[in-house]
């Protein structure tokens, strides 16, 4: 039971890392809090749902589709909202209001379009795709079903989301530390004004980071029907709050902090579910308070400010 809880916590934590990554990247680059982050996740989830329902497209191929669609969506949205916001006196605080409004608009439109009821993708669909991929890679017939890790069996969706999260973290690091764009992005993260003074096209860099953030949220959304049971237009707010807690626990603006925050959250949550199940949902807030009291900049706070 202990091993299962620990491993489940790791996988669940990785999923919340995936959710938090985009939110943290946007904060790190623009110093704004995208309170509509969970709503973009919801839109990604509905994209996966509709592609599956209408065209029987498995969620696995939906992952790159969702990432690209939302990456591209991020550019016009950035130029529509963010530059004006950044010209304000206190953009960090105003971003709460602006993106809260955006969140409400997205939720209302989604409710009008798709109704209020829960929607999901039948279980086993992700497992089917993963079994097919593993069969292709190994040359052996792999049955669709749960995947064994250290003698414990987990839903294929959990493992897939863990892998996607790992790829997401690596992608963000590769982008930040191995590409020229990432180099420029880090310059903007350190000081936007100095980056402007150095001749960096700050808006272009920020728009890419914004699109990247939305893309990661949408990818996390593809896994939502499996990790969160079902999806509704109203699910975004709760996801945003939890992922915000995760990135604050890790440290705002630091992708590695998001990984740490996600894992701390995931493992603690699963242990709470096992031993004090009635109180499990209090956990992100308790952790948040504890971390803010002991390390106000988050677990990796120092590094974040030097990014």
């Amino acid at each position, binding site marked *: 039971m202990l091993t299962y809880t620990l491993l489940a916590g790791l996988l669940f934590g990785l999923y919340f890392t995936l959710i938090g990554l985009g939110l943290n990247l946007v904060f790190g680059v623009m110093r704004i809090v995208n309170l509509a982050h969970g709503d973009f996740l919801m839109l990604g989830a509905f994209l996966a749902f509709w592609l599956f329902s209408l065209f029987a497209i498995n969620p696995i191929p939906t992952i790159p589709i969702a990432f690209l669609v939302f990456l591209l969506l991020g550019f016009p949205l950035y130029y529509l909202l963010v530059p004006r916001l950044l010209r304000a006196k206190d953009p960090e605080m105003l971003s709460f209001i602006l993106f809260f409004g955006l969140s409400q608009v997205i939720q209302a439109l989604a409710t009008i379009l798709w*109704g209020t*009821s829960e929607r*999901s993708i*039948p279980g086993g669909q992700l497992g089917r795709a993963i079994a097919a991929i593993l069969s292709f890679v190994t040359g052996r017939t792999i049955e669709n079903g749960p995947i064994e890790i250290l003698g414990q069996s987990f839903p294929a969706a959990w493992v897939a989301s863990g892998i996607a999260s790992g790829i997401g973290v690596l992608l963000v690091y590769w982008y930040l530390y191995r590409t020229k764009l990432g180099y420029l992005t880090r310059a903007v993260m350190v000081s936007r004004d100095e980056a402007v003074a150095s001749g960096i096209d700050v808006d272009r860099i920020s728009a890419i980071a914004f699109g990247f953030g939305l893309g990661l949220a949408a990818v996390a959304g593809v896994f939502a029907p*499996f990790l969160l049971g079902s999806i*509704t237009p109203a699910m975004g707010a709760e996801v945003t709050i939890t992922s915000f807690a995760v990135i604050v626990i890790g440290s705002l603006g630091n992708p590695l902090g998001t990984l740490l925050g996600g894992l701390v959250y995931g493992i603690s949550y699963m242990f709470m*579910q096992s031993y004090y*199940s*009635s109180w499990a949902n209090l956990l992100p807030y308790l952790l948040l308070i504890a971390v803010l009291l002991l390390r106000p900049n988050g677990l990796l706070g120092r590094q974040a400010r030097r990014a």
Partner: protein
Amino acid sequence: MFGKVRLSLFAALLASIFGTAYAADAPKEIKLGTLYASSGRFASISMPVHYGLKLWIEQKNAEGGVFVKAFNKKIPITLVAYDDQSNTATAATLFNQLITQDKVDLLVSDSGSVLTSVGVPIARDNKMFLFDQTGTGAAFFTPDNPYIALMSDPVSSVWPKPLADFITHDGNGLGIKRVAMLYSTNDFTGTQANAVRKFIKESGTDVEFVYDQGIPTDTTNYAVLINNIRATNPDAVIHLGYAPNDIAFIHSLEDGGVNFKFLFCIYPGLETELLEKNLGVKPLNYIFTYVTSSEIEYEPNFGMKLKEYKELWNKKYAGGNVEFGFNSVAGYNTGLVIEKALSVAESLEQLEIRKAVFSLSGKLKTLDGTFELDPNGAQLGMSTPIGQINVDDHDHVKFVTVWPHEVANGKPVYPRP
């Protein structure tokens, strides 16, 4: 002779004076105030109830209104409805607004115990009778509160009796000794869990609880919980939660390849269409559940039959995003109880309305079953037998009623294949 004529004239004069006053006093509209949740955790159980109630109002208004005995005429109904967004704090504010600002004549709760719970004390404090649509929490119904009655569903403290009886009688005979129960900690499923525990313990059988845990209602992730349940090697698993809980729980079982020998969930029977849409039909196969009025054709003595109502619903809400299920029947049933009560109430005074509603107890039969209240307003009728889902070769969901024996139409399949 002359005296008799004078007396008749005097009586006619009185009748004309009071008759005129009688008609003049009649309101132009009956204001019905209610809440619904268009978003959030309870939207999927709230919207069908709301749509059902709206359908009844539209139907009555198309006929010129609802007959009100107190004024001896039909009066149109005006619906005053607010969206509480599944938020209890918002619901509390809106209940107050309906009573104090809108001054509604009839107060109808939102669906489910969680959103009803905040309305109960507000209605009582304001001396407004609350038509509790589906809030079955036992704590709502107390001797010191005359301002409430439950329209549909048996109160949660008695609702799961057939489940406990089935487990301790037939289930015990089939080999069920070890029961695991996972429930959401809210007025609805929390009360049901207490009742199941009580009934099973009082049965005197050797059925024991090997797992008994409460979880927050907004739990979406069940993998660890399922693994913990599996570790106790139960003969039967009872999961008591709202529709999103059931969807997530069954989804987790399916994804994790876990098959319990006996699984009971509430919502496969209450919102079958919704669960089918989310999970497909196969994961629902052989699940035990309540068989509700959306599946059983009761013989009503007032209002439409289930088949007619379902046709009307499908015509009205065709292509919509709200599924037909037990809650859609419940909303319409509330309308029928209101209609019947107004047809016998002597005035629109709240306690008179209560008296009228209670006078229907044991007599009114709708498409939802027999309406029967205890002295505190808790519903004792509208019972839901225990059934097992059977998916046929054409992927159609059928309900095999297994308990009580007098209404059973098949045998339970145990263990679940």
